[in-house]
């Protein structure tokens, strides 16, 4: 068997070279040197020049002097063969090493088809496609929302086909595991708010009202919003990534094939977990935020602690806590639905999982802030 010489990294390699010998209308290409693809490549123009002789009828090879070779030789001969076919010149491969001929036989003689170039799309088409996909997406989200409402009723009656263990894991993940970061972030936000607020209020000699500012802002807006943003990044992204990975591993297909309702098994525990845990996290977050404000007010602004507390008591009404609680429930639902929906509509590759997680986080945060804005406008209109 004739094999190319072993190419050890230390061995010196010659450049590939060739001489052309013409005998009438036949040209013989005498190959020498080492034809190692990763070391030397022969320019396409040089290959084309070999066959570009007027009146040529056949091309042959002589390879007595050839050294080591690998795909470098094959690329050269394959290109020569395509050229020869194009010019109607017969290519005589008998002079090539038998093993190279065996590999050449595997190569198609026709150049590969070009990838079909997608036709240019008109702006109307793009806009229409976009609108249709948006509409389809809205329908899918509405469907999940509807199913959740219907199936939660069943879940309360104990009729949903949901594993209790899944719900508990989801509850722990969206609740206790997230508590630490929610408290830290809210504590810092409360402190920052107290500090920034006090600097402004002091100009009017009203720094006593820092308790009102921190209390109302934290309870009405900041605690719910910040907690939702944290949970969107932490849990919404995780939901999308988990479900997208399951999709890639065909786990979702397996659930569908067995006939297990996806919604009950996958989505409901996640949505329930976030909807149930978000208000609790909100309460902890609000307490932490107020405590942060209290620390800054007492330690850095020298406000008496009793003053802070008494102002807080009069400023923050129970209805405001209810307003914040209600919003946090809605935020939890939005984050969970977006995470699950984006996970389910992801592609099946590894990069799709990353994209799904990113999209879920971004969409979750945007949706939560938009919803908060709507709530603020509505509350204002209702003079609440």
């Amino acid at each position, binding site marked *: 068997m004739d094999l190319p010489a072993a190419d050890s990294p230390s061995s010196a390699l010659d450049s590939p070279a060739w001489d052309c010998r013409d005998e009438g209308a036949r040209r013989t290409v005498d190959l020498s040197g080492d034809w190692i693809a990763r070391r030397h490549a022969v320019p396409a123009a040089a290959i084309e020049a070999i066959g570009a002789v007027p009146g040529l009828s056949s091309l042959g090879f002589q390879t007595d002097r050839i050294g080591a070779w*690998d795909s470098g030789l094959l690329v050269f001969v394959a290109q020569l063969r395509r050229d020869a076919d194009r010019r109607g010149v017969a290519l005589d491969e008998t002079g090539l090493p038998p093993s190279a001929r065996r590999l050449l036989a595997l190569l198609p003689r026709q150049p590969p088809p070009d990838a079909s170039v997608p036709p240019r799309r008109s702006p109307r088409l793009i806009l229409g496609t976009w609108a249709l996909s948006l509409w389809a997406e809205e329908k899918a989200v509405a469907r999940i929302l509807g199913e959740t409402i219907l199936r939660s009723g069943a879940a309360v009656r104990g009729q949903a086909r949901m594993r209790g263990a899944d719900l508990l894991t989801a509850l722990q993940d969206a609740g206790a595991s997230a508590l630490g970061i929610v408290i830290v972030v809210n504590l810092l936000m409360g402190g920052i708010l107290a500090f920034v607020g006090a600097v402004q209020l002091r100009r009017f000699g009203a720094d006593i009202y820092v308790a009102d500012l921190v209390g109302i802002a934290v309870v009405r807006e900041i605690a719910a919003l910040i907690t939702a943003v944290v949970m969107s990044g932490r849990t919404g992204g995780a939901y999308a990534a988990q479900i997208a990975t399951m999709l890639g591993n065909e786990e979702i297909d397996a659930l569908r094939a067995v006939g297990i309702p996806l919604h009950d098994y996958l989505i409901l525990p996640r949505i329930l977990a976030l909807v149930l845990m978000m208000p609790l996290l909100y309460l902890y977050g609000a307490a932490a935020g107020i405590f942060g404000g209290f620390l800054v007010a007492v330690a850095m602004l020298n406000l008496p602690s009793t003053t802070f507390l008494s102002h807080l008591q009069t400023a923050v009404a129970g209805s405001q806590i209810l307003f914040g609680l209600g919003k946090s429930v809605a935020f939890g639902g939005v984050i969970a639905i977006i995470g699950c929906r984006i996970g389910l509509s992801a592609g099946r590759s590894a990069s799709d999982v990353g994209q799904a997680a990113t999209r879920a986080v971004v969409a979750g945060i945007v949706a939560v802030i938009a919803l908060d804005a709507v709530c603020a406008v509505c509350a204002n209109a209702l003079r609440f």
Partner: protein
Amino acid sequence: MSSAPQTEVKIAVEGLAFGYGSTPIQHDVSFTVPAGSIFAIMGGSGCGKSTLLKALIGLLRPSAGTMRVRGEDYWAVSDARREQIGRRCGVLFQSGALWSSMSIADNVALPLRMFTTLSAPEIDRLVRLKLDLVGLTAPGEMMPSDLSGGMRKRVGLARAMALDPDILFLDEPSAGLDPIGARRLDDLILDLRDGFGSTIVMVSHELPSLFAICDSGIFLSADTNTAIAIGAPRDLRDQCADPTVHAFMNRETPKSESAPGNGGPK
């Protein structure tokens, strides 16, 4: 198919032991792979075939023993040298392991871009050649997710051959392929060995492939945690006295087991 006439030894493994963490999987594994031959790593499911392959391609440090690749002690040399040796080896993973964010042409081109100084058109020509060699007529712009399992494997093989390695490691190359596809892949592996003179180490339990193309092999056992037979798969089928090997190679239920199909070969 007789083995290649060379006597040069590409891979020599001596007393290799490996496992995950403190769990030993195999010990005292020794074999040699002559240049230009096709070597099979055989054994039932879960016996450590793929783990041995991991050790051979440098992903898992063995806990004992030596492994020489082209005469160099693979695990004793520096990391940089090991990387250099690894570049002369190509690996086809079980499910192709294509990089999903890249087109199939980019998958094959990446090693060439990283480790050669070839120009872009030259790389394109080499990539097309490799895809043509494995019989993939699809345009290179396709993404791995658009391909069937068999096509992914072909692209994986094209990527493994990107740098014209002199040793090819194949993890279950024909698993999951239909009989015609598996046969074509067998022929392709033979063509590549004969054409490029590559040495091929493959993990497989596809009996027809083993008998058709492998010159020699090693049989690992999950019960004894070591190799229980070494030799050409055909010889093991016809001559091996070990009941497990005999049952595996002949697709029978081991005589020692009363319940049929219990832990037997797949």
